[in-house]
């Protein structure tokens, strides 16, 4: 009988009665939720039927909502969507096998929440995305690329792209390091998402003490004031999805 695993908690930290939590969530989400317990760890699980149809967006959002509701009551390690184990015993074995790692991670995230900061180039500034903060002198192309020959022309276009990418990269690094210098004052846990579309300058996740939430907001407001030409956004608080990841 396969089980979906939503999140993992440390019983000793959770002040709310587990039976009460599972009852309340089961009712709210109309799903049969229960806790699988191994020593101090519990995993919120629900029985699931195997099905042939594809996954829908609503199912994914419902999964996330259950984790979110759970996180409102007690610190959780959120599982990725699609975490299914073959049986109840497998859930227990999974907990026991990784117990030390789970306890360590739960200790790391207790009293903290995850936030996302995104900074994007705005299309209204597309003509000169890098703004006037860097020098605008067109960089000279090497003479060797000057020719009407097709191959050279191809290469010289590629080279121009390469130079402008490089310039853009330098600029994003500047904005990033400015943001870092502020954010490091309130947390050691900052991660930057690397696989991005070209519009992104910063896509960062931060693990922030609950007491420092307003300081983070100040930093982001200040960042926008420094760079009014960019789109800026702060979202949260989230369960610590980005800080419980597996490291290879």
């Amino acid at each position, binding site marked *: 009988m396969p089980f979906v695993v939503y999140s993992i908690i440390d019983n000793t930290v959770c002040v709310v009665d587990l039976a009460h939590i599972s009852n309340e969530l089961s009712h709210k989400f109309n799903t049969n939720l229960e806790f699988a317990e191994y020593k101090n760890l519990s995993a919120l699980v629900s029985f699931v039927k195997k099905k042939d149809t*594809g*996954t*829908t*967006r609503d199912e*994914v*959002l*419902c999964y*996330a*909502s259950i984790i*979110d509701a759970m996180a409102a009551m007690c610190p959780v390690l959120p599982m990725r969507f*699609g975490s299914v184990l073959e049986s109840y015993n497998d859930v227990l074995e999974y907990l026991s096998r990784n117990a030390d790692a789970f306890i360590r991670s739960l200790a790391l995230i207790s009293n903290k929440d995850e*936030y996302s900061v*995104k900074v*994007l180039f*705005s*299309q*209204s500034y597309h003509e000169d995305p890098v703004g006037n903060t860097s020098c605008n002198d067109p960089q000279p192309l*090497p003479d*060797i*690329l000057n020719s009407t*020959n*097709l*191959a*050279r*022309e*191809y*290469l010289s276009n*590629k*080279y121009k792209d*390469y130079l402008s990418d490089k310039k853009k990269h330098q600029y994003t690094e500047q904005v990033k390091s400015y943001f870092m210098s502020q954010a490091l004052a309130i947390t050691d846990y900052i991660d930057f*998402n*690397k*696989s*991005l*579309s070209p*519009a*992104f300058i910063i896509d960062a996740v931060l693990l922030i003490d609950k007491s420092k939430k307003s300081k983070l*907001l100040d930093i*982001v*407001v200040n960042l*926008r004031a420094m760079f*009014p030409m*960019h*789109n*800026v*956004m*702060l*979202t*949260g*608080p*989230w369960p610590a999805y980005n800080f419980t*990841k*597996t*490291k*290879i």
Partner: protein
Amino acid sequence: MIDDKILFRAGSADEIIEELEKIKPGIQGRIIATPDNVDSGLAKLVLTLIELIRKLMEKQAMRRIEGGSLTDDQIENLGETLMKLENKMEELKKIFNLTDKDLNLNLGPLGDLL
């Protein structure tokens, strides 16, 4: 059911949504091959790897140009080779009905390949 999680937002919401849509992960984490698309499934894997190598070569070439150590003949050869390679790639993509977006692999915790 979902609470609004926006604490601060400045600039164009439409642009933000557009970009988030672009990086939105697919809901299915599988490469599904059926009798109809088995060619394109395998081609996708192979072309992804070729594209990775092609891009690495291109970047390396740009660094060499920047370094200024290439002779006239080398530049000529380089331009022609890279151009033909890219054209060939475009042909192959068309044959197997693949777009640039298809030529990527999500490596889970490592992010995207390209």
